[in-house]
């Protein structure tokens, strides 16, 4: 029983973080069908913004909000630098510009801050533990679960109940048709990048909260996670991405409990091998995305 609860908390907290990461990637992919390789750097930027805010002596929540705002701004900046100027040219060009922008941001952190880890300010709640029914678990895990639940609920509400949300869902399923109904392309795309930045910002704080430091390469793992979860979740489906995140967390947690230590090293090879197999079997991802209605 305690083991089951422990397992559940592990899966839910990891899955919540993974789901937010995947959602942030897929909201851009779904609309533009373009992979944003600079997505992990939104999380890195959040970490450094928090680190820099650490010197100001402001209340922690204000610093965290500022860090998330920086992530939103960087998301929008990605759109203006790496996507908008080459959007019409070719798919490959956009992939390369976003890859280049990712390298640019990482090296900017190397150059202007430091290659070495930097401590970010965290409130004490991140290092406290709590006991629930005999299971001792870090508070930050519960915090992650709560944050993911709230954010996913708010996100679902916005996408279902606001005109812009409905327009974004429509654009994700058939961008041209949405434009032919008067939905402005640029607004939808910029909103998608802003939301992507918001999700990355929140998950960034929770993710960095696990280790307490930020390094220039910190965005790599979230990017890989988002890739896998997105592929599992059907590439273009927003709810699929969330499901993919939890499924991946379930697989990872199970492997953590069952695989021997010397095999665990190869976990990334296993999960990415799985990604390749899934894409071979179903190039659109494991779960069905929205039927496009578009002839391809």
């Amino acid at each position, binding site marked *: 029983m305690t083991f089951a609860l422990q397992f559940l908390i592990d899966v839910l907290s990891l899955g919540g973080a993974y789901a937010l990461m995947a959602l942030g990637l897929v909201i851009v992919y779904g609309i533009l069908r373009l992979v944003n390789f600079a997505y992990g750097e939104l999380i890195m930027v959040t970490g450094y913004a928090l680190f820099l805010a650490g010197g100001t002596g402001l209340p922690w929540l204000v610093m965290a909000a500022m860090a998330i705002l920086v992530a939103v701004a960087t998301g929008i900046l990605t759109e203006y630098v790496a996507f908008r100027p080459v959007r019409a040219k070719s798919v490959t060009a956009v992939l390369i510009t976003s890859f280049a922008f990712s390298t640019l941001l990482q090296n900017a952190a190397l150059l202007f801050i430091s290659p070495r880890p930097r401590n970010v300010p965290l409130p004490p709640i991140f290092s406290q533990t709590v006991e629930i029914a005999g299971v001792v678990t870090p508070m930050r895990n519960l915090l992650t679960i709560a944050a993911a639940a709230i954010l996913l609920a708010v996100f679902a509400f916005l996408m279902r109940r606001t005109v812009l949300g409905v327009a974004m869902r429509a654009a994700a399923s058939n961008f041209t048709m949405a434009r032919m109904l008067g939905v402005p392309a640029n607004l939808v795309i910029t909103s998608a990048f802003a939301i992507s930045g918001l999700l990355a910002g929140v998950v960034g704080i929770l993710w960095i909260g696990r280790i307490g430091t930020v390094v220039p390469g910190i965005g790599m793992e979230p990017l890989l996670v988002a890739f896998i979860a997105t592929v599992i979740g059907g590439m273009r489906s927003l709810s699929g991405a969330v499901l993919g995140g939890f499924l991946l967390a379930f697989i990872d947690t199970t492997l953590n409990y069952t695989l021997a230590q010397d095999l665990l090293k190869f976990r990334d090879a296993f999960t990415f091998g799985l990604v*390749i197999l899934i894409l071979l079997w179903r190039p659109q991802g494991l779960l069905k995305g929205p039927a496009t209605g578009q002839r391809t």
Partner: protein
Amino acid sequence: MNRHLLTAVLLSGLVVLLVVATEALGVRVFDRIATNLCVSLVLVIGLQIFMGNSGILSFAHIGFMGVGAYVSALLTIPAQMKGMALPDLYPILQGIQVSPYLAIALAGVAAAVVAAVMSYPLMRLSDAAAVITSFALLVVLHTVMTNWSNVTNGPRTLFGVPKATDLLLAAGVAVAAIVGAVAFKESRTGLLLRASRDDEVAAAALGAHIPHLRWRAFIVAAFFAGVGGALWGHFVTSFSPNAFYLHQTFVILGMLVIGGANTVTGAVVGAFLVTGAFESLRSVEARLNDLKLFNDQVVGLTEIVLALAMIAVLILRPGGLFPSREIGAVLARAFANKKKGAA
């Protein structure tokens, strides 16, 4: 002269010129830079063979460079050194030691075989699925290199690879790569593949089995990646798996994109330009570090400049400096126009 032959001769001539100039100057630093440039040429041209002809972005290329480097190292590290360099090596492999030249060729073959086995089913994917799977392939190869301690020494540096690559060898291989890439581009496979890049349906209607064509290009590309990796390994003599990951991918991709992925000329010019810029910026970085103006070491400046250059090229000149015509064709046309003007 045939314009394809002209392209191959001119581009090879550029490499010969580099060798002659370097030998004439006799400065050791230039020798190192020129050798590195030739190794980069082999890698960039390899990537051009796949990307330029198929039009599909591949992230896996540098993974095959790693395969080549490790295979060649395994085949050449002297038996008595192996005990130290690779303490967990399988006994069967301990006694093997072949000439580095043979090993470099075998490294190319090994990379090509790995690519052939792993990639065939991937070749029918396009767009984002193709890119994510190639990225996944790079991660898989990297994870294996980092963790298969028996043959790679794990994430630690592998020492004791015999020095075998000099400027002449690297330049020779680079010339072979240039000739190979031009020949591939004009071969039946290359022509059909380029037709499929522009219009998949029309090329399929010509009877082209596109995944099969892509597969051939991918194998040839992996062969050059493996050879390039082995050459590099025998030049630097010690390396770790991180040498074959995103940073190197970024550099090689940058060379190809800036020069122009669709042409061999673009690949060659891109390699020369980026290497030149890189080395100048590196020396600026070193100078700054010597001056100790800043508390920390200055790192990353070079990459920032290359990233900006890549983005600028893709915005202003999406096809790169040589977007569609090879240098041979450009000159042949200019010559023909001049003749017309004279007559």
